[in-house]
């Protein structure tokens, strides 16, 4: 085994006590310095990889956003804020921005509500709980693109199984009638459908994160609150929520980031249609930057996501820094 201390003789050669004495000779030999050098050497591959392929591209996207780079033409000129201005002047952008916010907030609230409900249900002991848990998390564990394809078929304009059920129940008219919902073909319905799929995929995650929090609260605390006369909602709001707040923050941050940046649901279900009704910033950035090849424009659009992401990331950062190591 070679020693990482750079040319130092193999430690195998010395008994421990002797090694210590030798180590006291020079600063390089001091254990702390060697340990640190060794540590940073071990960290280097991961840090470099991430710096080169996340850090550098991120800075590069800032540069692209102020250039007129295109896919075909590698030579780019500085164009200042023209890309941002162009984005702000197009109506599509505003629609996409509005949809992104509605989508993220609306779906987020629904996921939180459903997730909370499910978490409390799963916190009760009952027969077959493991099985139920395994089944309800399926939406989250299926690769997203794959489950979205299933939904696309379920939302089919003519052979939708949902419509079959609804019309049999008498809630909607038969095929061809005006109250036959064309899920992905009508503006509001399409936005709703897209949100629904996001909620379907995300609520198990909220539930499981919350459940992990709930099980970390010692039951004695809850019991003593109950003895003191705290009702269910009071216990939830005053005791459980503050105690598991860090977990909630992290869960929320993750979910927000994933929701904001996910393009596959909209791309595969509607590709922004009908008529831009479900266009969100990610799809707009993809269609502008890659499809149409205007890298600079696309980069500028995707950077508009950053202010939306920032709160989630700050929240996460603060939570992480406050914990003890």
């Amino acid at each position, binding site marked *: 085994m070679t020693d*990482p201390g750079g040319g130092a003789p193999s430690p195998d050669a010395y008994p421990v006590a002797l090694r210590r004495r030798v180590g006291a000779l020079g600063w390089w030999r001091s254990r702390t310095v060697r*340990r640190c050098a060794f540590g940073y050497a071990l960290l280097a591959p991961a840090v470099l990889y991430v710096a080169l392929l996340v850090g550098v*591209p991120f800075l590069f996207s800032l540069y692209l956003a102020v250039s007129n780079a295109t896919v075909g033409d590698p030579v780019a000129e500085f164009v200042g804020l023209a890309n941002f201005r162009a984005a702000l002047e197009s109506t599509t952008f505003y629609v996409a921005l509005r949809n992104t916010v509605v989508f993220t907030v609306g779906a987020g609230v629904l996921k939180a509500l459903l997730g909370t409900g499910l978490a409390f249900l799963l916190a009760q002991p009952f027969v077959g709980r493991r099985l139920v848990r395994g089944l309800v998390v399926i939406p989250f564990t299926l*690769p997203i693109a794959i489950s979205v394809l299933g939904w696309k078929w379920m939302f089919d304009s003519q052979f939708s199984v949902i419509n079959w059920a609804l019309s049999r129940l008498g809630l909607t008219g038969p095929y061809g009638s005006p109250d036959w919902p064309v899920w992905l073909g009508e503006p509001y319905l399409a936005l709703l459908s897209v949100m629904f799929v996001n909620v*379907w995929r995300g609520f198990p995650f909220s539930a*499981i994160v919350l459940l992990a929090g709930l099980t970390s609260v010692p039951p004695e605390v809850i019991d003593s609150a109950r003895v003191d006369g705290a009702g269910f909602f009071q216990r939830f709001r005053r005791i459980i929520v503050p105690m598991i707040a860090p977990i909630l923050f992290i869960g929320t*941050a993750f979910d927000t980031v994933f929701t904001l940046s996910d393009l596959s649901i909209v791309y595969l279900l509607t590709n922004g249609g009908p008529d831009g009704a479900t266009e969100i910033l990610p799809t707009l950035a993809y269609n502008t930057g*890659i499809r149409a090849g205007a890298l600079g424009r696309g980069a500028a659009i*995707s950077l508009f*996501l950053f202010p939306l992401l920032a709160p989630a990331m700050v929240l996460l950062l603060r939570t992480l820094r406050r914990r003890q190591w």
Partner: protein
Amino acid sequence: MPFVVIAVFPVFWMAVTAVKQEPDLYRMDVVPFWFHLPPTWKNFDLLFTRTSYRDWIVNTLEVALWVSAITLLAAVPAGYALARLRLPFAENLGIGIFMTYLVPAIILFIPLARVVSLLGLQDRWWSLVVIYPTFTIPFCTWLLMGFFKTVPFEIEEAAMVDGCGQFGALVRVVLPVSVPGLVTAVIFSFTLSMQDFLYSLAFISVSDQKPVPLGVATELIRGDVFFWGSLMAGALLVGVPVAIVYNLFLDRFIAGITGAAVR
């Protein structure tokens, strides 16, 4: 229980669709939840004979394999260093690495498109091998860091007393007892790679280089013609195993994320 129905129904419906005969899919006059013509394997056949599905599976596996290897090589030493060596700035570095997991693909994919073309990897699955570790390394470093913290110091000390260097102690003693952690890291490299859609969509447009999710989503829809049966068959054939494995390791995933808050 409505939760279970909502969660499972789409999968059930996909499975039924995958083995239904074509005419049976388009009958709205009968209860669609079951078969009115005998089930068939024709959709799977079509997948393997008329599309590059076999290539997609091979690509997916190869990508996942390489990504796992790269991830382990980078994340194991990093996780160990952060957990054990009491480095100055370890905390900030650790948080920094973890935060990069949250820099979303949607901000990075455009500059990365340039990187991919600089490397000459457009339209090749190798581009994904290069890109996927950008999210698997941060996550697995974090995961392994938590794991290494649970390995008792004493066994390491004992190894060093017995004449191993710090590195020797890591390789000979710490890694063997950390096999469950390493397996978890590999599993997540696999499953997180499978969850991606954006990168493969942006970087690969040649049929025989696609991974399964992209291939199924783009090649089985021709204009307005949907091959629903084969689409569902191809999606489930890969989706179900991934979901099962992910399911088994879900607690580790959540612990990896939330452990950050409670540990």
